[in-house]
């Protein structure tokens, strides 16, 4: 292990070390702490410039009630769920299929296909903006949930396919040989062997995709226009225009937007971290 572990016997050095870590962490998370505190403040405090001191009065309920009563945040939130969940499910299903074929069947052009997926995955997605927007307009999907779902599914397929391909390729080959010897069809192999074994990969992929799609802002502002279909990220940006200096309400809304990914992260942290490293290291 590196750096050298501090042995359990050195109690004082352990306590000192941990104190140091928490001190660094305090600076690291200062932005988050500040925004949490601000979401508790009253508007008077903000106007008086009390950004950093102890709030003169806690206004928690009022601030959070304001985002539900006076803004469309709940609608945006619902929109985000309507966009994100089907996208994640579709990507998981499609990438299991493509990843399975790419990892277990050699065919002409499979390396090229692999390279295309990596390249697509790495592109600054803004490069696709003009044609994708035009495509959605001609399909009649512009400014609907469908536009965002269609785009996210297509784009995330690159990353997800690489991810699933690598995971399935690492499964023991004997399993597949045995199944083939028994005369199982590719469809049966997929259903009986692959699907049960890739569950951990699917869990990791699901949380990553959820975070990516939930946090998307670019496509939200490019492919939607009306509040009825806008996801939370775009909604939050709108809110900033309307509530210019009401930082307490904006902070509350900001935290509200961050709840689902942060919650998912803490609930499935192991999957998140392993997914991120697996996805990045191999793909």
């Amino acid at each position: 292990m590196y750096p050298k572990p501090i042995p359990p016997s050195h109690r004082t050095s352990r306590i000192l070390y941990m104190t140091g870590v928490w001190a660094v962490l305090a600076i690291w998370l200062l932005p988050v702490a500040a925004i949490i505190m601000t979401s508790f403040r009253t508007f008077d405090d903000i106007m008086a410039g009390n950004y950093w001191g102890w709030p003169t009065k806690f206004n928690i309920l009022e601030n959070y009630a304001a985002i539900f009563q006076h803004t469309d945040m709940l609608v945006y939130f619902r929109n985000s769920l309507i966009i994100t969940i089907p996208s994640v499910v579709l990507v998981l299903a499609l990438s299991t299929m493509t990843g399975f074929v790419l990892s277990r069947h050699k065919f002409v052009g499979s390396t090229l296909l692999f390279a295309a997926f990596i390249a697509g995955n790495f592109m600054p997605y803004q490069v696709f903006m003009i044609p994708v927007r035009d495509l959605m307009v001609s399909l009649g999907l512009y400014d609907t949930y469908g536009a965002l779902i269609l785009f996210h599914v297509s784009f995330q397929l690159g990353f997800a396919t690489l991810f699933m391909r690598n995971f399935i390729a690492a499964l023991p080959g004997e399993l597949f040989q045995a199944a083939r010897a028994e005369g199982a069809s590719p469809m049966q192999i997929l259903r009986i062997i692959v699907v049960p074994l890739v569950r951990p990969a699917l869990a990791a992929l699901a949380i990553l995709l959820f975070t990516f799609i939930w946090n998307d802002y670019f496509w939200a502002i490019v492919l939607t226009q009306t509040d009825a279909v806008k996801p939370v990220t775009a909604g939050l940006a709108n809110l900033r225009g309307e509530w210019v200096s009401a930082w307490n309400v904006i902070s509350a809304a900001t935290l509200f937007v961050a709840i689902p990914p942060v919650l998912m992260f803490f609930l499935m942290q192991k999957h998140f971290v392993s997914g991120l490293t697996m996805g990045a290291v191999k793909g």
Partner: protein
Amino acid sequence: MTTPRQKMLERWTPALLLAPGLILFFGVIVFSAFRTFWISLHEWDGFGTAVYVGLANYRELWTDPQFWMSLKNNAIWLVVFLLAPPLGLAIALLVNQKIAGMRFAKSLFFMPLVLSLVTVGVIFSWFYDPTFGILAKIFGLFGAEAPALLSSERYVTFAVVFAGLWPQVAFCLVLFLAGLNNLDSEIIGAGRVDNARGWQMLRHVVLPQLKQVSFIAIAISMIGALRSFDIISVMTSGGPFGSSSVLAYQMYEESLFSYRYGYGAAIATVLFAIMLIFIVWYLANLLKNENGA
């Protein structure tokens, strides 16, 4: 018994499984990449008919000061984002200890990674608030007045990049922690026997083993830098006077606000070309490693 029909179906199963994914990926993503280039050769307002103009859009780019400004800002993003891997490694070394409470501390360090860039942008614009922001407070301690970073043409890009660096460092931290976990303990032990310590140990024993992870951390930071858009849009909208714009943002503005889709597509193509350099470098490295392993 398998009938000929079933045999036929089985033969085609792989193709059928691939089809939906490939159709979407090639139909929406790959096709769009090529179409961007095609559109860049036209004058188009997004509604009417596009007029072929050859390389006129590119010639105009060459003489457009805003284009050079955006390109320069992209370069600043790339250079500053190179700080993310070493900073991530530093934090990784700090938290790679098994002490009670460390697990929780680690997850808190990861947190910026799951926040949306819109959130990060909102938080930092408020940090930089010239009257009451934290920066103003710190300057106030020394009796000085804080510069209004976000309205200063000189500092604005650095202020925005710094905000973008925060989640990027967290990403690199995750990668390096995984790398540190996979270190060969025998080599580390041998290093200790040879009395390698501190910096020497890091430089000659640990870093060589983290080569692959470092490469990925750098590649991912470069991609992140070239993709920067959200945070710029939220914090400055490219302002003041385009001084914090980058290629991605300029393309967005030229197309959606000035209705110059052909010109926007030309900017996108330049961005594509820059990215291609990195992708080729990355793929070459990846394939070399895959063949070598």
